[in-house]
């Protein structure tokens, strides 16, 4: 516009020009206008220019955008496809249920794709024929039930969930209209029965309904975006397998109805193995009775018997109501409130504290507890976690059963493990506090970072713990647990034989035998607990079925198997340094009597 103004001026400056005239010139031809006509023309031209500029601008923008799109490719169909799945991922962090690993990275549970078959009954032409053909592919499906299903007036029924690729091929080959496949997720447990009670299982839709699967359901399924991902257990499949193998071997040797056991790291509280027999296959939990799914280690509570003497002795030594040199007269049974507390294989003489522990004297232990008193005993047991429901990453946790009253009689019976029912899990973690220098640590099923010691709370003095270690070693060296000896690994432990209480009475013929042990006793690293439910004696045990005969050998074999795996080096027991470290005088007065 501005460029035209000089020309316009020219026009104005030529007054001689005609109203409508054409100045013929070689260079330019002008239509000269004046007045209103000129204004109108001007206006029209201005409008045209404005519109033109606008359009030009728009086209430039479009062209620019086109070039941009062609170069970057953003917004194309393929890209939209690629972007789309990212949006729901922000809600559900995992694309499928996360796996569960053991501490060595072995798979314990994993989700795989599996094909399921469903039908649209309205599209099926001949339900009877289809049912008959399908039941040939799936022998476990009844033709009648299938026919009824396929005749329903619905448009969706499941025919078979999670079939094998071969079955899928067969169904495809049948060519029945109205049958469709759908890809689904299926939880697979490659290790089968091995860690069934720990890992647990899921229902057919992939929701955890037992064990770790239930406890960490939201983490595994990714429902909680902040805490989603796989779970790494502290369990070691090698230890777990050795434990299960030995337990099931001895369960069948002694014809027990059940067995349980666990291996616990005393420095971190990590559970390396947890087995409850009989068990089940989490790949097909429906095929096993409910009793098999009962986790005897965490959910079951039992009167543990003499293994409690370790706690009673530690308590008495820690509170200094007795010293290792002291002892009690165990000549006669104690009569109290109509009960008689007696020893199974009584020595019928004065016994020192190490002797009481070594020969597992009920009388001596009861007297030891009586000196401590009910109040302090209760406080002590509370401190080592035997009176509360334990805390561990499992939904199936049994609470201890406390006696209705807690007087002198109860103090005496609890001192040797009767009248108070606790779970093997509680017993193991309390035992680990007894031997690891006196620190109680919560047991855990989750692998701990690094090898540093986990913080805990002190429950007994380090000196007391040292005495308990030596006493437990003494039991294996010279006492009731001699069959638990595993050469080179300095096993120490305490036997426990308890009669089962059924309907408020003790059943003489049904025992629960246990052996709570730790190794190596000069610097305990692991607590091993083995339990047998209703073992029966045989020729090899001369008919005996007490813990020293039935469960102690389990520990012996188990320790020999797992110690090299766990990196515990065997030591020479004859080494004077070891002998000195494990030295525990019995302070017996028997010899003195004999000499006179």
């Amino acid at each position, binding site marked *: 516009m501005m460029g035209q103004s000089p020309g316009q001026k020219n026009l104005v400056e030529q007054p001689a020009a005609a109203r409508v005239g054409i100045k013929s010139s070689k260079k330019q031809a002008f239509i000269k206008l004046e007045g209103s006509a000129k204004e109108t023309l001007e206006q029209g031209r201005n409008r045209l220019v404005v519109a033109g500029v606008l359009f030009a601008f728009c086209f430039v923008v479009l062209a620019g955008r086109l070039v941009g799109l*062609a170069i970057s490719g953003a917004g194309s169909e393929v890209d939209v496809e*690629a972007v789309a799945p990212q949006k729901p991922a922000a809600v559900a962090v995992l694309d499928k249920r996360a796996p569960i690993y053991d501490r060595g990275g*072995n798979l314990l549970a994993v989700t795989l794709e599996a094909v399921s078959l469903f039908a649209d009954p309205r599209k099926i032409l001949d339900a009877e024929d289809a049912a008959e053909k399908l039941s040939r592919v799936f022998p476990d499906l009844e033709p009648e039930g299938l026919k009824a299903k396929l005749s329903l007036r619905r448009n969706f029924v499941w025919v078979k969930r999670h079939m094998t690729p071969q079955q899928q091929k067969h169904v495809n080959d049948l060519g029945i209209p109205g049958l469709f496949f759908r890809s689904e997720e299926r939880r697979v447990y490659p290790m089968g029965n091995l860690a069934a009670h720990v890992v647990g299982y899921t229902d057919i839709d992939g929701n955890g309904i037992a064990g770790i699967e239930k406890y960490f359901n939201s983490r595994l399924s990714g429902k909680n975006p902040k805490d989603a991902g796989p779970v790494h257990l502290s369990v070691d499949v090698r230890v777990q397998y050795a434990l299960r193998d030995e337990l099931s071997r001895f369960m069948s040797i002694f014809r027990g109805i059940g067995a349980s056991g666990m291996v616990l790291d005393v420095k971190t509280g990590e559970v390396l193995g947890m087995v409850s027999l009989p068990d089940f296959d989490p790949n097909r939990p429906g095929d096993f009775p409910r009793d098999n799914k009962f986790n005897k280690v965490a959910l079951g509570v039992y009167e543990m018997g003499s293994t409690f003497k370790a706690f009673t002795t530690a308590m008495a030594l820690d509170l200094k109501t007795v010293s290792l040199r002291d002892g009690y007269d165990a000549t006669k049974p104690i009569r109290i409130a109509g009960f008689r507390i007696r020893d199974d294989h009584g020595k019928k003489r004065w016994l020192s504290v190490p002797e009481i522990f070594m020969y597992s004297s009920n009388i001596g232990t009861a007297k030891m507890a009586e000196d401590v008193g009910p109040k302090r005993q209760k406080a002590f047991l509370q401190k080592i976690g035997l009176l509360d429901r334990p805390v561990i990453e499992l939904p199936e946790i049994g609470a201890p059963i406390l006696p209705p009253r807690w007087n002198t009689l109860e103090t005496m019976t609890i001192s040797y493990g009767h009248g108070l029912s606790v779970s093997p899990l509680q017993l193991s973690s309390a035992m680990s506090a007894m031997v690891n220098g006196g620190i109680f640590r919560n047991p855990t099923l989750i692998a701990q970072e690094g090898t540093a010691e986990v913080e805990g709370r002190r429950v007994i003095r380090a000196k007391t713990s040292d005495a308990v270690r030596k006493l437990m070693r003494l039991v294996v060296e010279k006492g009731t647990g001699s069959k638990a000896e595993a050469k080179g690994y300095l096993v120490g432990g305490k036997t426990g034989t308890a009669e089962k209480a059924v309907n408020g009475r003790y059943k003489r013929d049904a025992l629960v035998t246990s052996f709570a042990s730790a190794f190596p006793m000069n610097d305990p690293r692991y607590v091993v607990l083995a339990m047998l439910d209703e073992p029966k004696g045989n020729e090899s045990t001369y008919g005996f079925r007490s813990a020293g005969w039935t469960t102690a050998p389990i520990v012996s074999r188990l320790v020999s198997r797992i110690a090299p795996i766990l990196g515990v080096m065997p030591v020479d027991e004859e080494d004077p340094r070891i002998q000195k470290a494990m030295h525990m005088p019995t302070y017996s007065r028997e010899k003195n009597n004999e000499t006179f």
Partner: protein
Amino acid sequence: MRWQLTTCFIAMAVGFSYGLYQLSYEVQALEGELAGINREIEDNKQSIEILKAEWAYQNRPDTIQELTAKYLPLLLVAPYQVATFKDLPDRKMAPEVLEALDNPVPRRKPRFEWVYENEEEGTPSYTLASYGGNSVLQGQVK
């Protein structure tokens, strides 16, 4: 002048649009390829998952125990059978080797080489050629 400009513009427009379309199609083809590769990756990931599960299943401790019982005469490990690397006696090394180990000169990248230690016998033996490139060590390489 004007028609030249116009022709020039038209030619440029044709040229650019051809180039851009070509580019665009190429990009689309690449996108398609990418999507295909991504699908393949997903597929392979799934196969890996299945293989991992299979691996875990085949490596169940009870299977391994069955196999050892069948093929190996193994019993419970006795304490005297347990040893560490520390218990092994020190292996005597040739002085040239020790010298080469002490040599602060940057070493060659480790790689696998055939080395003839004894030329008369001509028995081939191999060594990790990470001791450094001295001819002392490697002898004659054929």
